[in-house]
């Protein structure tokens, strides 16, 4: 079953901000296969007993190496943050349905991310920058500690706008205070969003109101991540769909956010 299950060497595991970590592992084969929106499923405990499940991470960048971006917030991610350069990790991937690309008429592509939801957006901008779109990132974070250094996005030619709940960086408020940066022409604008469900719901309401098409990358607790256990199902217009196999990327207007 080596098709998707492999062991890779950790090259970098570093703290990027008070809250966020970045891990780089040596996986040239995986890097060549992964598409924006896809994820990897990592065994954070070698025995697989505590925590019991693997942990899913959006691929953040896949060039020569594969990078993930994570918040050391629970038992799995805390264990992951203890991995050192040279450690070996057990990885399943690439998994899931990637983002669909924008239609041919698209001029402006708006990436709307909340907190750790920024993770799939960098690899997406790596791909989209080749297409000469007007690329805009609207990022919402709790405070300064939850804002990620945006250099790589700016290097990709992305115009970055930030809102924080406490106003410590950018405009004070939720990411919706930045929606005036979106060109409201449904035939030439395309939205990608990833973040907490209430944020994605606000994005969906805005997009539906202005008939702007887009895609959302969803999250749910996962066991297998292979579409076998049907544990990570969410409600959509077309019934229950698994985030791991049918998603994580769905049409923005398809998902019923709760």
């Amino acid at each position, binding site marked *: 079953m080596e098709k998707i299950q492999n062991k890779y060497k950790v090259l970098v595991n570093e703290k990027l901000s008070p809250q966020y970590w970045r891990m780089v592992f040596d996986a040239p084969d995986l890097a060549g296969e992964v598409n924006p929106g896809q994820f990897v499923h990592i065994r954070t405990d070698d025995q697989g007993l505590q925590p019991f499940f693997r942990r899913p991470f959006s691929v953040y960048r896949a060039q020569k190496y594969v990078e993930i971006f994570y918040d050391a917030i629970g038992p799995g991610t805390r264990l992951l943050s203890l991995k050192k350069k040279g450690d070996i990790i057990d990885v399943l991937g690439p998994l899931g349905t990637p983002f669909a690309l924008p239609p041919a008429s698209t001029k402006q592509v708006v990436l709307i991310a909340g907190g750790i939801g920024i993770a799939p957006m960098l690899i997406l901008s790596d791909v989209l920058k080749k297409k000469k779109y007007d690329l805009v990132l609207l990022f919402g974070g709790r405070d300064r500690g939850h804002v990620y250094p945006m250099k790589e996005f700016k290097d990709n030619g992305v115009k970055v706008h930030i809102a924080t709940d406490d106003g410590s960086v950018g405009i004070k408020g939720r990411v919706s205070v930045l929606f005036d940066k979106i060109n409201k022409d449904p035939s030439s604008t395309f939205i990608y969003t990833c973040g907490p469900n209430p944020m994605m719901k606000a994005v969906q309401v805005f997009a539906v109101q202005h008939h702007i098409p887009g895609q959302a990358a969803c999250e749910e607790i996962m066991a297998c991540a292979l579409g*076998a256990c049907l544990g990570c199902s969410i409600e959509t217009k077309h019934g229950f769909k698994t985030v791991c196999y049918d998603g994580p990327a769905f049409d923005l207007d398809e998902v019923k956010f709760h």
Partner: protein
Amino acid sequence: MNLTIKIGNATFPNPVTVASGTFGHAERYYNLEEVKRLGAIIPKTVTFHPQVGNQPVRIFETPSGMINAIGIENPGIDGFITQKLPALKKIGAPLIISILGHDEEQFVGIVEKLNAQHGIAAIELNLSCPNLKHKVLVAQDPEATTRLVKKMKSLSKFPIIAKLSPNVTDIAEIAQAAQEGGADAVSLINTFTAMAIDIKTRKSRIGNFTGGLSGPAIRPIAVYMVQRVASQVKIPVIGMGGIMTALDALEFLIAGASMVAVGTSNFVNPRAPVDVLEGIEVFMKENKISDIREIIGSLKR
């Protein structure tokens, strides 16, 4: 080395299979050359009509295990035969089809449709799913178990395996009831009815309110139940419950299981069933055991 196991008129190349509901999309994700070496594959339970499954949240991680309440989401027997069965047959491992009817008529309907199929090794009757709105499971009632198994045996052209619930006072009594009905084997255990609570919202962590506990957390109880059942019935036992490694599987075999199923650990290590099979082969070689039957039921007192 002989690892073959017989259940009714079906022969399995080795005792390692995958538990129902824990294995899927092999064609996309797995190395099929490895998967086809398994003793059998038991796909997710299929019902007469399609089922959409339970309201999320459907799973919750627990110490060394998980609670699930998926609710047998499946395309129904007709959908299964047209959409799933062809790809499963292509894998090349024997297939044990797990079925569930909400009444006897539905069980009959499913078996009749499967009788028209080829390339099936056996049928497993799921008498023990804890996540549906049944007040009492068939596998909690010895008379109902005997009656249903007898009816299925009279209809099915394939061997019949009864999957039992641990949510009973004495699982051996139910196993004997299945044997009395003519079952070719029993498989055990299904999950334990369980619950976890979010103390912030004071609500159940599971959309279905309760779910079924599985994984290594339940393994010692499963080993005990398999030992107890195997000592009280003459038919083969398929043992399962938290098997992660070959060493775990060997416990079940020594306790009396003729076959073992790898379930929840598929979610943590997709290669687990193959690892278990290879580990059993290594154990037999190292201990100069030429026939798997030298291990089965070899527990000493």
